[in-house]
């Protein structure tokens, strides 16, 4: 394995080319059995044979390294030894036709018409199929519950309805569509994905981003986190039928989004992050006004969220519901608040800091119980800490420009990997350029990609009526997964 160089990039020629057995041994050595490292991306490059490329992040050391191997159309599956790659292997099977021999559940990832679901036998069990069109206003996905009475024995999640082909459309870029495609990879994580893309672009083009731009980007990213966490806490209240917090937080989410709109005119932070910096600046007065507005909204949010912890009927629903064990979280490679709620101390903002996070640390929020309560608690801690970070940053905005003027082309034949801690967790973008500086492969890994399986695990042995609650406590993206 080879560490990425400065700027999180490495020349394609320098990526180690191992035999499959060495490749496998390397990955198992570094990531297996809770060794600390994780596979953040695994994909194939089809130029000159099928080359598997794996990016491995070591959170304790704060490093990312890559390794690769050439495989035939079949290869021995890594999943039995390294469960966290199970979806990556299924993806390779679907998109690139590479068959991992010995994969325990090999089926397509984004083809919703695949009908082979794992089934539970017996006369007294029954199956509940939900979706793709749901009763609520949510994105499409299909869920198959194997139930015994009201108990869920197994849940299989089948997605792909939102598949638009973003990764394919990125190939040959960057062009005028690229940044917009990234902003819409997951609409509620526009800042997170566009920021990850901007980092790739800047690293490859050698652009130095002004400090002021980095500060504004971090503010926007944390605002996105606050809006979504507060909104989700309200939605959790709604899912257990607790109306006060649901009503207040539903409205407050919009108010936080409106702060983002004050920055860039769009509630979801569209058109804000651009390669080289940010497209909008804030004046001193505006910064003061934003801070004032944020403070008053926070007081209201705190009051609304506090009600949750003071209402026994709510706590009775949150506690011991949807538990994911710490070991399972490590094994399947959970990321973000879902992982932190299982007690895993990992956060890309502190483990792999970029931009503003290199100067200002945000404490990592963890909880131990791994249930809905823990996920709600982590989200509450996170939005409060993000708010403090924003207020501090707004009070001491670096002077200078907001965008770097650079028309440099992307470096040729280069690989770059960046991790950005979006509100759902780690967003990993990994790009490889061709000899003429165009994207040859652009791999997007939304945190939802890692975490959907966590939701399936959380549901085992739970009541089926608790599914919406568990689902909302993860609140994963369908479009970010389907791309």
């Amino acid at each position, binding site marked *: 394995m080879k560490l990425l160089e400065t700027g999180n990039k490495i020349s394609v020629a320098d990526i180690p080319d191992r035999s499959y057995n060495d490749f496998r041994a390397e990955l198992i050595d570094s990531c297996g059995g809770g060794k600390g490292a994780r596979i953040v991306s695994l994909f194939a490059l089809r130029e000159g044979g099928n080359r598997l490329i794996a990016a491995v992040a070591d959170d304790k050391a704060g490093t990312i390294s890559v390794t690769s191997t050439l495989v035939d159309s079949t290869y021995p599956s890594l999943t039995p030894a390294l469960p966290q790659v199970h979806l990556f292997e299924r993806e390779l099977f679907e998109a690139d036709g590479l068959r991992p021999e010995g994969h325990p559940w090999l089926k397509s990832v984004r083809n919703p018409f695949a009908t082979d679901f794992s089934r539970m036998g017996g006369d007294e069990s029954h199956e509940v199929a939900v979706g793709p069109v749901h009763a609520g206003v949510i994105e*499409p996905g299909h869920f198959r519950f194997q139930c015994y009475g009201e108990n869920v024995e197994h849940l299989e999640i089948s997605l792909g*309805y*939102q598949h638009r082909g973003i990764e394919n459309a990125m190939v040959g870029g960057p062009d005028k569509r690229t940044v917009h495609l990234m902003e819409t990879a997951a609409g*509620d994580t526009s800042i997170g994905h566009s920021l990850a893309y901007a980092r790739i672009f800047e690293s490859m083009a050698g652009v130095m981003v002004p400090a002021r731009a980095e500060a504004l980007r971090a503010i926007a990213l944390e605002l996105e986190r606050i809006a979504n966490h507060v909104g989700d806490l309200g939605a959790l209240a709604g899912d257990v039928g607790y109306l006060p917090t649901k009503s207040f937080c*539903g409205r407050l989410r919009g108010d936080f989004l409106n702060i983002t*709109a004050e920055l860039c005119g*769009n509630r979801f932070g569209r058109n804000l992050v651009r390669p080289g910096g940010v497209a909008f600046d804030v004046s001193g007065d505006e910064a003061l006004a934003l801070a004032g507005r944020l403070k008053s909204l926070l007081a209201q949010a705190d009051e609304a969220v506090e*009600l949750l912890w003071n209402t026994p009927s709510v706590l009775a629903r949150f506690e011991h519901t949807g538990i994911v064990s710490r070991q399972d979280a490590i094994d399947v490679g959970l990321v973000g608040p879902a992982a932190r709620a299982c007690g895993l101390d990992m956060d890309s903002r502190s483990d792999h800091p970029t931009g503003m996070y290199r100067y200002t640390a945000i404490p990592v929020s963890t909880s131990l119980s791994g249930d809905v309560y823990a996920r709600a608690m982590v989200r509450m801690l996170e939005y409060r800490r993000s708010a403090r970070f924003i207020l501090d940053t707004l009070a001491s905005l670096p002077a200078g420009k907001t965008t770097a003027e650079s028309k440099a082309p992307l470096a040729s034949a280069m690989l770059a990997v960046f991790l950005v801690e979006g509100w759902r967790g780690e967003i990993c973008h990994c790009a490889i350029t061709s000899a003429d500086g165009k994207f040859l492969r652009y791999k997007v890994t939304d945190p939802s990609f890692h975490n959907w399986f966590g939701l399936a695990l959380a549901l085992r042995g739970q009541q089926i009526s608790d599914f919406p609650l568990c689902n909302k406590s993860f609140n994963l993206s369908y*479009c970010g997964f389907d791309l």
Partner: protein
Amino acid sequence: MMRALNARLRQGYRTNPFPAEDPVLSPRYAGLPQLDPGACNACGECEKACPTQAISAHTAPSELKLDLGRCIFCGECEKACDQGAISFSKTFRMGATEREGLVLGKNTEMRIKRLNDEMLRCFGHAMKIRVVSAGGCGACEADVNVLETIGFDLSRFGIGYAASPRHADALLVTGPVSGNMELALKKTWEAMPDPKLVIAVGACAISGGIYRGMPEVRDGADSTLPVNLYIPGCPPHPISILNGLLGLLNRLP
């Protein structure tokens, strides 16, 4: 319980006064684009900058046209035009019952025609909407969803979201209609009792938006269903969506 009531008192009254009053939007909000063919010199720079081919301006200044149905309001054309022929106003009232009405610059009028009297008698004060997200990024759903919160309180107009297509009067489509959702969307439509409407919300649902032309998508709800109302934006501001719905139901003052 007392805490909740206490909080209720302190959180106060927060429902947006629209449609009685216009809402206060961010000063940076990019609303309805204004075209000034007089200033246009047909250099075609805006067309080159536009990521969704929403704009055409390469032949003659009088031909300057902007298709709101494709526009994602990124503002690149405004930046690219050194003549100032394109600018984004603060007007949030956007929407049309005819697809052609969204093409600005031609001799068309962007207008939301109210439903006919018979439909209005039924739906005017009671309409249930089934929302189907057919591809797309999820931002439009979020802004549709937000209308049900107390911030906008859709139910004061007698409008609400239905849990089942059987209960629904209108099908609100977001997203470009991905190939994988096409069948589900059609089935939802067929499951609804007559009379029924289709509302396309967002650039994706109107034209495919940023995904237009990609092989995995069907370039908008038009491809599959007869659309009655188009609400442009990427995503449209909730107030634009509300304006569209109320316009259709003849509830705007």
